[in-house]
């Protein structure tokens, strides 16, 4: 099962590498959001450091949304999804394939956006890089888990591009709040252990929605 998932995920990433459109747009989008934030605030009233965690996470989640829309769209190009469903692979491995590909895709976008963020907003991340990456991973996995499930559904509805954010945004609230809080604590130089409650919440969210999405995904693709 995991082997099939990896074969499909690798194919998705290869497709992404070949066409690059989605990747380039997501990265440019992230850079633009960061820029807009810089000019969308009053520099005399609000210190960058107060706003920085929110800016980072709004950027990440919006860029993630772009990636999610793409995941099942590319299976619909020539109805490849039908042949995938005829093939002797479990529905669950299809979900995990998309999950892994989305996580890598969003992870790479985040890896490019994070240095930009540091550069643009002059945030010192030197000493906290490792815990910061940990928090980013924890929160990203959670919203990608739900987002992958929903993108499978909306890809076959009308107004897919609009439907996904409407359905998904409420689900982004817990990971977003948690990630912003922990990021703020880290940037303020406080230890990771102070945000233990938040980290537990993020982990619980990941476990709950990974399990739920794995269980529910087959019903979204079976006819």
């Amino acid at each position, binding site marked *: 099962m995991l082997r099939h998932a990896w074969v499909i995920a690798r194919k998705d990433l290869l497709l992404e590498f070949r066409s690059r459109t989605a990747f380039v747009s997501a990265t440019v989008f992230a850079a633009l959001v960061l820029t807009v934030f810089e000019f969308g605030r009053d520099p005399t009233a609000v210190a960058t450091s107060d706003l920085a965690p929110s800016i980072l996470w709004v950027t990440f989640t919006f860029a993630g949304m772009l990636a999610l829309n793409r995941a099942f769209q590319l299976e619909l190009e020539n109805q490849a999804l039908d042949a995938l469903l005829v093939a002797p692979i479990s529905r669950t491995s299809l979900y995990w394939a998309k999950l892994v590909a989305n996580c890598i895709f969003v992870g790479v976008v985040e890896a490019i956006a994070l240095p930009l963020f540091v550069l643009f907003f002059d945030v010192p991340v030197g000493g906290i890089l490792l815990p910061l990456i940990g928090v980013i991973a924890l929160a990203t996995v959670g919203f990608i888990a739900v987002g992958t499930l929903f993108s499978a559904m909306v890809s076959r509805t009308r107004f897919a591009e609009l439907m996904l954010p*409407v359905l998904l945004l409420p689900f982004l609230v*817990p990971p977003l*709040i948690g990630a912003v809080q922990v990021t703020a604590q880290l940037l303020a130089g406080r230890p990771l252990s102070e945000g233990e409650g938040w980290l537990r919440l993020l982990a619980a969210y990941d476990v709950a929605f990974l399990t739920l999405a794995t269980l529910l995904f087959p*019903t979204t693709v079976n*006819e």
Partner: protein
Amino acid sequence: MTIAQRGRWVSLVALIFLAGVYVRALVFTPEERTQGLAQKIFYVHVPAAWSAMLAMGLVGLASILFLMMKDYRYDRFAAASAEVGTAFSLVMLTTGPIWAKPVWGTWWTWDARLTLTLFLFFLFVGYQLLRGAVNETSLRARYSAVLGICGLVLLPFIHLSVYLFRTLHPMPIVLKPSAPSLPPSMLITLLSSFAVFTLLYIGFVMQVYGAAAARDAAVGGGR
């Protein structure tokens, strides 16, 4: 008598009771000392919140049952419950600020329970948008069931995360283990209001469900 007709009677009875509860609330229940007349909204706001929560709970439950049994009556029930829930959450969201302005001095605060109900409303709206965007009966039923279940799991996470974030809502005073701090006359009014709103929920759902059943039967095959 069809379900819809019976639903109309139940709703009518509930509305009469509602008027009764309100006469009791306005005339025979003492005015709260600090909040004054504004507190009377309480008797609509809290029970409406209860009905909206009940609606979401039953959407989730019906969704699980639908996926297990593939019986379209559960799907129809979930749809009806979501529609009625939307109305109740709207009542809750309008009465909340009206109460909050004189008492808290602000129309809106991002307190945990208020935020939760706002997202409850968003979930209901998303649920109905999704149903509207899928034409095929079986697909629509499965997609909305997936969303219903995820929504139910999401609510505690939102509550917890916003609660950790900040809270200034009046703490629950009805269900304290020791003697309730609400005077008996207020408590009776509130509890009867709960009963009336539950009845209203039942009546409304019966009407919506009955209408949907009739519509489906007209289209053919009861599906």
